[in-house]
């Protein structure tokens, strides 16, 4: 079992496009770490460099203490699950499962024994003699997982393994992957652009954007204390509201002020914010779940109400811009209503409007 350490990893392609810049991160032994980010941010490239399918332009990757950049994929003791599964089409399920063992020179009986045992745990036993194209997407997915599991590698790499499945199967496989990770306790690096997958499965999440690491932390840390505007906006659904304004001190208390919106910050935060007071240039981030249709901070005109059953997603127009509110209950508002808005001051996120960095408070 090993940890994976990226040290100042940099990758530029022949055409000059930079996929990854100064990427440093340590994935702890046994951790389930997720690379999360929008399309094209370099998640796959990083994973492929970990696998040895791509060579970094500069920087190092360590498995434990061992530098691996010069090792071919077959000697890294890793397994990878591809988004397209990459099952060998001319081989049966059993042959697919056994292939990594065959290449390691494991004897035929032993191979068959392990493939059969694994097939049972993955509910593939009835399909051992089928070819991949005669399997459903979910079954193919399981075979791909099985082929990764069978050699008991030190590190698992998974590149959007669930993205080709339908919603129901995806939820089910998510749970199975979590259990699997708990059972085998190996280091897993998982790539996705789906924040729900990242939030539900990961020990820690590494949020990436445009080839740069934005923040690493547990799902809760990422959600509660996004380090910058990008992370704040990318994680959470519906997405966080952003309102630009300033911070002023009133009777020793810090107040966030924007057009038509005022939020008095709690005492503990006020003290730390005192030095940051300014008339403008502050970006407040408010998650829809931290707003309610009660008096306190301002008001807005309802544009749309999306009824989810247990809650309404209310979009309102305010002088400070459009604001989305998750309002618990049913029929909490109707389009055209003028509704009061209250921001939970404990949960207000403050960023520097120019740099997008979180303000220290």
């Amino acid at each position, binding site marked *: 079992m090993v940890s994976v350490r990226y040290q100042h990893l940099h990758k530029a392609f022949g055409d000059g496009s930079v996929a990854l810049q100064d990427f440093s991160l340590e994935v702890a032994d046994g951790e389930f770490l997720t690379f999360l980010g929008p399309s094209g941010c370099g998640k796959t490239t990083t994973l492929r460099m970990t*696998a*040895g*399918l791509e060579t970094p332009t500069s920087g190092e990757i360590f498995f434990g203490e061992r530098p691996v950049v010069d090792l*071919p*994929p*077959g*000697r890294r003791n*890793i*397994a*990878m699950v*591809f988004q*397209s599964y*990459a099952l*060998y*089409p*001319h*081989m049966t399920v059993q042959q697919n499962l056994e*292939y*990594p063992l065959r*290449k*390691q020179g494991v004897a035929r009986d032993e191979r068959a024994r392990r493939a059969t045992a694994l097939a049972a745990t993955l509910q593939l036993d009835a399909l051992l003699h089928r070819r991949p194209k005669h399997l459903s997407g979910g079954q193919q997915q399981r075979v791909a997982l099985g*082929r990764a599991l069978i*050699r008991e590698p030190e590190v698992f790499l998974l590149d959007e393994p669930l993205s080709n499945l339908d919603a129901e199967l995806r939820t089910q496989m998510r749970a199975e992957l979590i259990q699997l990770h708990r059972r085998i306790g190996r280091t897993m690096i998982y790539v996705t652009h789906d924040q729900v997958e990242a939030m539900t499965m990961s020990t820690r999440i590494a949020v990436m954007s445009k080839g740069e690491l934005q923040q690493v932390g547990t799902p809760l840390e990422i959600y509660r204390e996004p380090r910058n505007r990008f992370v704040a906006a990318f994680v959470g659904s519906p997405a966080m509201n952003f309102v630009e304004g300033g911070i002023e001190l009133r009777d020793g208390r810090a107040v966030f002020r924007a057009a038509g919106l005022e939020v008095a910050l709690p005492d503990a935060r006020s003290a730390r914010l005192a030095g940051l007071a300014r008339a403008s240039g502050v970006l407040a981030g408010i998650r829809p779940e931290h707003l309610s249709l009660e008096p306190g901070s301002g008001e807005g005109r309802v544009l749309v109400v999306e009824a989810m059953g247990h809650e309404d997603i209310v979009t309102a127009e305010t002088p400070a811009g459009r604001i989305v509110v998750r309002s618990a209950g049913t029929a909490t508002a109707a389009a055209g209503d003028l509704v009061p808005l209250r921001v939970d001051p404990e949960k207000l996120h403050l960023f520097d409007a120019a740099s997008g960095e979180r303000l220290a408070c």
Partner: protein
Amino acid sequence: MRLKTSDSLIGVAFITPAATLFLLLVAYPLFQSILISFSAINTMTLKGHYVGLANYLDILQDQEFWRTLVNTLIWTAGSLVLQVLLGVGFALLLHRAFPGRALARSLVLFPYLLSTAVAVLVWRWLFNDLYGILNYGLVHIGLIERPIAWLSRMPEAMISVILVGAWKFFPFVVIALLARLQTIPLQLYEAARIDGASAVARFWDITLPQLSGVLAVVVLLRSIWDFKEFDLVYLMTGGGPGIGTQTLPILVYREAFPQLHLGKGAAIAVVMLLVMLVFMLLYLRQSARGDER
């Protein structure tokens, strides 16, 4: 779904020209040849009479026929094996990225596009025992002591014909395989690399199985075509020395024209047809299986 009468009429209308052409140009001559093969007919006068199976019995007892059949099999198998080896090799080479690949891909087609007559002319000149560059080169580097009469000695003549045949027809194999190679997903190779497969193992475990369908079709087509190849062999050696490189199509020609035994020539052609029919059936089965896949 059931077709409406008007739909089936349109279908018939569409197929009629093709069916007519087929009947006129394929079925009728075929039927005629089979008919002729049961007669003794003089090629010049076209006069003759029905002789039943006499031509066939004649062939079966004819030493020359059997010798020619063996020649045909040797030529077909020899040039086919070389075509496939060269074809696979070049296809793999041309599949990799290198500067000038587009040019190389068109150059490799050259032998296939060249007219057989021109190709043979050039090769006969290369193989010539007196002034051929091949002998000159081999003597020069000391592999042989004196020039070899490549085309008038056995087995050199057969070897030469096979080599030229392989050279002329391997590009067909290259094109077919190259097209297929480009459709093999790269991720299969990446998965295999992660699974610990060496370059050689990846060729055997992925490339070859993925090519096998196309390869089977190519082999069957080329065996049919090589089996009935006339121009290349005839122009190279005229079937000689003696009947050393005489293949069945040459024998058909010789019986039918210089010897004026049209009936016997036709009978040999029908025997050839039967042999090729076996390959045809294999081919149809293979392509049906391909469709299913």
